[in-house]
């Protein structure tokens, strides 16, 4: 489940109450508790028994485990947080006893609360035990194991065949027919893609010694912050921590914050629910491509898809950022007029900015740095090619491990590499050219046109589930194959 207008309205009203009425000292706790509850509320119902309770609970336990692996010490507040977390989870399980219309926080009837308590308590105790056992010597290894575990979980969930096998296995354990296994209805783990990347960021920053000391409550709030849980942006913890620390001193009645937050939400709602949903009526999809009979029509579908994707995602980001502002958290921007960029490099600095930054920090930079340290150092072009291709393929596969997302990553990796080579080879000429204002303007517009169409053609890989289908559409766009 994602944000709908009802959820947005609840968060907006909640934001006003939080800003205007709530005692300042409660703010961090309110963000924490709201975020924990949101993990359950937004989880869509799943067909494997109790899975829609187990997965949100697993998110919370995973965050707690990562905190235990990375925290330098455990404070009294951390113990209180564990108790509160325990109470919330058990309390939600207790809702099992209520009539279904009162169970507003869980997607279906939760499991037996006593069982929940018996399962979670030892896990939390074990987590604290692990924290005590970690030494500076063992920590890097344990952190690597944790990263590997998250990556493996990510790969299983994002690979259709593996997720399907897991789904079938889960059904078998329940004595149900595994042939009905479907990861979308059995294992749709709310926000896991974002949670996983935030967790890896924390683990990796601890390994490199960059992670600030952060309490369990604040780490939970960062990882599962309710407005960015399902579709980002992917903030950085040190920036987020700064906002959290500033909350007690925040002027709740600051009109600028109220105006800014509300405006962002209104703009986001318009972009997502009016513009994007309208464009969806004629955007590229597997049904529409079968029906269109001309290259012109296919281009219209593709443009429809490109703008629909932008307005949907950037609208969603606006809503998330706006809600964050109302609650005193200034999430980073995710889009900055990406379709008006005149190079593919500039496009990737303005499209899903926080994901691009994450991959740059944790994939591209370490990878290229490592290659530069090799005794037989490859040429800079080879380093760039490997770095860019790896980065973009990972961005592609983050959306789902499939050949089409791989191809999408390759498409952009190649685009970025070709642009790098071009800009390296033409830098001198370009510096001369920059002095001619009229020609430069024309050049910029040509760049925008070219970049936009390169990106738009790339969306063919992104939008369609099948490589042969994508090739067929690419052919049809140029009049081949009708």
């Amino acid at each position, binding site marked *: 489940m994602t944000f709908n207008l009802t959820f947005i309205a609840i968060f907006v009203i909640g934001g006003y109450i939080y800003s205007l009425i709530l005692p300042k000292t409660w703010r961090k706790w309110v963000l924490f508790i709201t975020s924990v509850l949101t993990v359950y509320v937004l989880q869509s119902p799943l067909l494997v028994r109790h899975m829609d309770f187990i997965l949100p609970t697993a998110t919370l336990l995973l965050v707690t485990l990562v905190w235990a692996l990375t925290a330098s010490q455990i404070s009294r507040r951390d113990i209180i947080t564990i108790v509160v977390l325990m109470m919330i989870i058990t309390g939600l399980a207790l809702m099992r006893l209520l009539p279904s219309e009162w169970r507003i926080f869980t997607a279906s009837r939760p499991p037996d609360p006593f069982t929940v308590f018996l399962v979670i308590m030892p896990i939390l105790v074990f987590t604290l035990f692990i924290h005590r056992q970690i030494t500076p010597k063992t920590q890097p290894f344990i952190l690597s194991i944790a990263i590997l575990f998250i990556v493996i979980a990510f790969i299983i969930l994002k690979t259709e065949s593996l997720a399907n096998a897991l789904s079938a296995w889960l059904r078998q354990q329940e004595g149900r027919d595994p042939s009905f296994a479907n990861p979308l209805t059995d294992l749709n783990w709310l926000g896991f893609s974002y949670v996983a990347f935030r967790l890896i960021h924390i683990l990796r920053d601890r390994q490199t010694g960059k992670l600030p000391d952060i309490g369990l409550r604040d780490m939970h709030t960062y990882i599962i912050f309710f407005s960015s849980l399902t579709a980002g942006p992917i903030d950085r913890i040190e920036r987020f921590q700064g906002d959290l620390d500033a909350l007690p001193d925040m002027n709740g009645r600051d009109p600028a914050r*109220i105006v800014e937050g509300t405006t962002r939400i209104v703009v986001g709602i318009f972009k997502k629910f009016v513009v994007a949903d*309208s464009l969806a009526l004629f955007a590229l999809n597997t049904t529409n491509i079968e029906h*269109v009979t001309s290259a012109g029509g296919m281009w219209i579908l593709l443009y429809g898809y490109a703008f629909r994707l932008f307005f949907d995602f950037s609208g969603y980001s606006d809503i998330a950022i706006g809600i964050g502002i109302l609650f005193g958290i200034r999430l980073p921007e995710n889009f900055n007029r990406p379709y008006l960029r005149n190079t593919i490099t500039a496009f990737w600095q303005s499209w899903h900015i926080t994901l691009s930054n994450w991959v740059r920090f944790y994939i591209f930079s370490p990878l290229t740095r490592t290659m530069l340290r090799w005794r037989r150092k490859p040429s800079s072009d080879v380093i760039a090619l490997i770095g860019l291709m790896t980065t973009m393929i990972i961005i592609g596969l983050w959306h789902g491990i499939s050949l089409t997302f791989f191809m999408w990553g390759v498409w952009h990796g190649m685009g970025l590499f070709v642009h790098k080579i071009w800009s390296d080879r033409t830098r001198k000429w370009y510096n001369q050219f920059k002095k001619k204002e009229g020609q430069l303007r024309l050049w910029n517009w040509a760049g925008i046109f070219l970049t936009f169409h390169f990106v738009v053609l790339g969306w063919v890989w992104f939008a369609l589930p099948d490589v042969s289908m994508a090739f067929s559409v690419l052919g049809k766009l140029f009049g081949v194959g009708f």
Partner: protein
Amino acid sequence: MWNWLIKPQKPYTWGFIIRVLIKASALFIIANLSFAFLQPMDILGRLSLYNIVFTGRERFPYNQDIAEDYTVTLDNIPAMFATHEINRPKADDEYRVLLVGDSATWGFLLPPTQTLAQQLTDRHYLLADGRRVVAYTIAHPVMSLTKDLLLLDEALNHQPDMVVWLVTMQSFSHERQLSAPITQRNPARIRRLIADYNLPLNPDDPRFIRLNFGDNTLIGQRRILADWMRIQFYGVMWQFTGIDHVVMNAISRRNDFDADFSWENFDAPQSLSADDLAFDLIRAGHQMVGDIPLIIVNEPMFIADGRNSHVRYNTFYPRWAYNQYREQFAQFADEYTWRYCDLWDAMPPDSFTDSPVHMTADATGRFSQILGEMITDYLDFGYLGRDCD
């Protein structure tokens, strides 16, 4: 990108917020009140990208599969006509024929290129004065003569030269006249028809959807407005695919029946009176069209030969009822000198798809030839041709 918001020329104050709230509330209230008072949906409905940016649709929007169809079902009559190809200017050499009717005429289970009207046009009939016969589908997949009148009333604003009204007995049922959403959601238009043509319908029928003041506001009409917007966006897909309605696989019609004598509210054979069937609505249609030639066609239907086919012609009609309907129709036509053509058995059984009146594309083509010859015979010789004799 957001500097205009983050760094305003003057700092935001609570006074600013209150002023914005007051102005926004005032605008919201004024817009809603104005909308409720003006009730502009009829005017808004006439605004359309069809016939300007996109080609007009060959039939009225009707949605059955929300995920697959490139259309939404509209009940706003001006909006329906605005999307339709009839809303384009009439060519000088065009002889405009309206085909009014139910789902069979609309072309259920047929693509727009194979509807009765399209196949009739594609036969390129030329009149003695050189004009081309161009037929238009003025049909909606609902069986109700009142619905037909509702559409005909609006269609007359589009310069027809002839009206062919294709009917079947189901459309004559009094119960069915106001059972469809399109009739229930257009009470003002139907009440006007009732008053103008003395229709045998209750102007206060409880099935009419009564909109209170709130329902007429912008908020109350949001769904209708959204549908009006959606149909414009769907114009893109219509333009580039020529598909409006996904043609499903037909469920085969039944040839065997129980010994069931029922039709509508009648459980057993009995003598149907003139009041049991809505022939007054056919009379009203004649009044409505005035001097424009109107031909009434009793449309072809599937005639079963399986079990209990001596009881029923098909799933719609028991023999006793349908025979009386035909007799009464012929008598009324004779009495009022209607141009009436009874083509009930004009098509062989394999012409029909899922229902007793829906025909295959080929059969529709053959039927269009019968209609075409009927129209040209009438125009050339003043009689409806041999198929109607």
